[in-house]
């Protein structure tokens, strides 16, 4: 029998094993390298970006609720919880990657017009799939981290709550475990009110006017009183402010007469420089929308039970609180419900006087029905200096221009708001007629998005108006006060500030 000598095969086996080992080591290194970097670029970078998307989505949800405080006040922040004056959203999970967001909103500032500003703090969280480790390129040098300094990953506990507390103010730090590695980013957005009087005249429908010798110009009352010579004097530093009497028309039907010292915008109109005297830009492609006006929330207002009607001569004095008249504040005015305003009623609203000094006094009326309902109506509204009056009404408004008496001369101190009819077939109207002299006029603001506005005669007006259709046939002298661009109730909100808490 022959025995096979196997000594020749041992060397081959070792060489083969060594080769496999070397190749395996190289392969393992390649694999480790690839998976680690793929883990960073695919999972961690993605989650870092996703978490910002989630936080911004939370900010958008909050912004939608803030806008509801104007467009649908009774349903604003529905489903949110309220605690300590803050609105706290439910936790929302969305998207294929199960992003999570939540927001806390608070009104942190009431501006001089009484409009709340909102701060929305949103957090967005994205889970991280893959390996529970940082990348291979994290350490820049002995003392510097790279990726983990930028993208703070919570592998086991929420680092933010542990270090800064849940609200980031150093209160309530705690070790809160996370069910899965995650990244959370936090943003803060400030929503500011948009006020309605950014132009002298804003008509959502048609426009006709003014008279052939009429003009619209502007000034800024914080700089000085109105001076008719400034608009034609380029060397005057107030010249720019004198040529901002802008007219905005949201239709193509724009019959322009008189002079406009400002810009003219239409929506599809054919206005050219040849057909009107317009000092500024003519743009015939500026559409806009004006939402119907609802009665705003009265939650923070100070309701006063009397008077309940304006009959004959009616005087409103501030209510007494602890022996002193209450002047109110922009955010909490003295608020009166007026069930009717007789056709020839005369209303006087007095300021609070403390130690012989009139105080800035904030008053809001809600009038059910009309303020003057025929051409013979001559209701009078008198607002002495220091009184800031807002009048909401649900019907029509009709009087003589001279019967709107605003002693301060600042249009922002007398504001009229026409609540839009709930029945679309009802056409609301505002008619103002001259009287008491060719130039007798007034200082006031009108926000009447559903009303047709008519001026007969040529009163001298300081103010601004937002209406549906506009008609004026006289030689009106209209002076827009640029200070008014922050006056009035909020008609919408815009986000004016964005900051990320990068801790």
């Amino acid at each position, binding site marked *: 029998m022959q025995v096979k000598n196997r000594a020749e095969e041992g060397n081959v086996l070792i060489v083969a094993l060594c080769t496999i080992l070397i190749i395996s080591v190289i392969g393992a290194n390649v694999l480790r390298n690839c998976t680690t*970097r793929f883990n960073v670029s695919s999972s961690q970078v993605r989650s870092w970006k996703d978490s910002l998307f989630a936080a911004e989505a939370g900010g958008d949800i909050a912004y939608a609720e803030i806008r509801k405080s104007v467009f649908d006040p009774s349903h604003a922040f529905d489903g949110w919880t309220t605690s300590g004056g803050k609105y706290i959203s439910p936790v929302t999970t969305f998207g294929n990657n199960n992003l999570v967001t939540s927001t806390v909103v608070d009104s942190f*500032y009431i501006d001089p017009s009484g409009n709340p500003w909102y701060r929305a703090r949103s957090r967005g969280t994205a889970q991280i799939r893959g390996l529970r480790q940082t990348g291979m390129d994290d350490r820049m040098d002995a003392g510097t981290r790279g990726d983990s300094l930028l993208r703070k990953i919570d592998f086991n506990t929420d680092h933010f709550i542990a270090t800064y507390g849940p609200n980031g103010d150093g209160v309530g730090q705690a070790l809160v475990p996370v069910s899965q590695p995650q990244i959370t980013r936090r943003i803060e957005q400030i929503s500011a009110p948009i006020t309605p009087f950014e132009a002298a005249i804003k008509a959502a429908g048609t426009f006709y006017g003014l008279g052939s010798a009429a003009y619209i110009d502007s000034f800024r009352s914080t700089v000085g009183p109105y001076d008719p010579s400034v608009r034609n004097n380029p060397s005057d530093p107030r010249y720019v402010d004198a040529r901002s009497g802008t007219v905005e028309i949201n239709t193509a039907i724009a019959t322009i007469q008189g002079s406009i010292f400002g810009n003219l915008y239409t929506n599809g109109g054919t206005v050219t420089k040849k057909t009107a005297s317009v000092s500024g830009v003519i743009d015939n492609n500026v559409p806009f929308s004006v939402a119907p006006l609802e009665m705003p929330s009265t939650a923070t207002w100070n309701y006063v039970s009397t008077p309940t009607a304006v009959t004959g001569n009616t005087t409103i004095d501030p209510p007494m609180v602890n022996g002193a008249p209450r002047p109110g504040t922009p955010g909490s005015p003295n608020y009166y419900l007026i069930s009717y305003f007789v056709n020839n009623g005369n209303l006087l609203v007095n300021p609070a006087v403390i130690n012989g000094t009139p105080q800035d006094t904030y008053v809001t009326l809600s009038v059910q029905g009309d303020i003057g309902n025929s051409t013979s109506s001559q209701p009078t509204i008198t607002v002495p200096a220091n009184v800031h009056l807002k009048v909401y009404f649900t019907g029509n408004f009709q009087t003589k221009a001279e019967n709107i008496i605003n002693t301060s001369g600042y249009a922002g101190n007398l504001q009229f708001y026409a609540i839009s009819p709930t029945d679309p077939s009802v056409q609301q109207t505002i008619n103002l007629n001259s009287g008491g002299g060719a130039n007798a006029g007034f200082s006031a603001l009108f926000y009447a998005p559903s009303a047709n506005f008519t001026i007969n005669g040529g009163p001298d007006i300081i103010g601004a108006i937002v209406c549906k259709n506009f008609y004026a046939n006289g030689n009106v002298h209209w002076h827009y006060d640029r200070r008014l661009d922050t006056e009035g109730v909020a008609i919408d909100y815009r986000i004016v500030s964005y900051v990320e808490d990068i801790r």
Partner: protein
Amino acid sequence: MKLKTSTSRLAFTLAEMMIALSASSVLLGATLTSSTSLQKSFNAIDTYFATHMQQIRIVDYLSRDVKRGLVVTTSADLQTVTITVPNYIIQAGDPEAVVNPALIGTPRTPTMTYTPSGWQVNYGANTSTVVYSINGTSILRTENGAITTIASSTDQLVPQTTDVELANTEYAKTSITFQPIFTSGGAVAERTGTTVYSTAYLRNKRRG
């Protein structure tokens, strides 16, 4: 029965040795060459990936700061970016912290100022300045004087940022390239082939 042993098969003939040695040498040479090439290739890819990760990091840093910024300014050579950002967190030495040290490290409540261009939201009286710059082979981020190395590579990382001003906002377009350590047959596009692009818009209204 006695087994027969063949002693002649215990060694190789010279010819066999020569053939075996030749074959072994070829195999060993091929193995060494392949291993070296593999190692070089691995090293190049590793460096490529590492630099690519740093490209992403630079983009992410820049995007984060641009989004929360108030104004972005780039230098003429496009390699230095200066961003003004709000002072969101109260720091030691800030006026609020002097009055109440407990406020250090807490978010600041903004104040509002009306300017000719509209309302302005301010987090404190001052703002912070963030500067991105190149220093040798490193990319630096300097915030109020504090320097952080956010990328460091021997692959000649070059970020270039352009700020484009619009009516109310601004955006920053960034492209980052590097020179890979391996080449591909004299191709001229080695650097351009590594470009990573990014565009980030200011979320705030541009100031200045």
